[in-house]
């Protein structure tokens, strides 16, 4: 059983636009997660990206648990980038 689902910026770009070709997919996933009581997460980074074009009050925050970006995440992100740069 899934404990939670992390929804990324691209998900919200589709889910919040009924005219998007992937809207139905996104919407059905969303419905399924809620019905199954699978927790939905959004990161503060996705919120920042979304707010480049939109506003925070367009996001369904009532259904979402926010994952903040703290110092320990920043540190891990730094070392992760170094790791990927070495792979290239």
């Amino acid at each position, binding site marked *: 059983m899934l404990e939670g689902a992390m929804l990324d910026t691209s998900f919200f*770009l*589709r889910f*919040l*636009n*009924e005219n998007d070709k992937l809207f139905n997919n996104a919407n059905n996933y969303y419905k399924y997660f809620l019905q199954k009581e699978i927790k939905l997460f959004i990161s503060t980074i996705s919120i920042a990206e979304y707010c480049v*074009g*939109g506003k925070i009050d367009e996001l*369904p925050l009532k259904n979402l648990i926010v994952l*903040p970006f703290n110092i320990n995440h920043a540190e891990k992100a730094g070392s992760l980038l170094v790791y990927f740069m070495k792979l290239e």
Partner: protein
Amino acid sequence: MEKIGYIEIIVKGFKGKLELTPETFDIKELAEIIEQAEKLLFPGERKERPIISYKMEEGSVKNIFKTSLQAVIGFSAILSEVEAKKNLDFLELNTAKAIETFQENAVKRDYTFEIKTSVENSPTLKIDKTTFYYRTSENWVDAEFYFYGKITNAGGKDKANIHLVTEELGTLYIQTPQEILAKAEENILYKTYVIRVNGKQNSQTGEIDKQSFSFIEMIDYNTKYDEQYLKKLRSKAMNWLNKIDPDEWLKDIRGYDA
């Protein structure tokens, strides 16, 4: 083989001109020692811990805590490490805090604490105003958390708090301004919320200080697919989403073409 061991916390010092003895040792100080001894022996979940019994003896004030030998042996190893490293950063948070409390009292009251165990050749950890048993504070950084759980209690006469039962971290106690609780329009007890808090987190281990939480906001979390709610959000969002190509837009803001 005897399965019971003990730790000994000896307190030496003066109260004014009176030397510390069991007769001059106040119950408040005793309560504090007992609280810290429990944390030293069982820093994690304490609900199902073995019995700890207590005895006070002369000299100046000798506090003896008897409990399972296994816990005492474990604690003896910790004492050795603290003695050798002169550092608390490797310890679990509750153990580190207990030792810090002894250090603070040693400075504040000019007491000497000697902590040892019944284990053969047990080291003695001596804490007085000249020692410096504190965690390296730079490892503990400010962080923000969103906790999902059920509120089981809210209030308090002086320091109000919310008790939030979470799956990940058990029950959390979040300091909350009384005005927030007074303003709550509905009964918040036994309902599920997401609570946003400030707190401290160890940047090296990721450990969260469960006693550091202060309230920022409460989010009325629900798992209902609310058509009307989502329609309202979409009507706002579509004003700009209809004008972009999502893939291109994301590539652009993420700098893929740079």
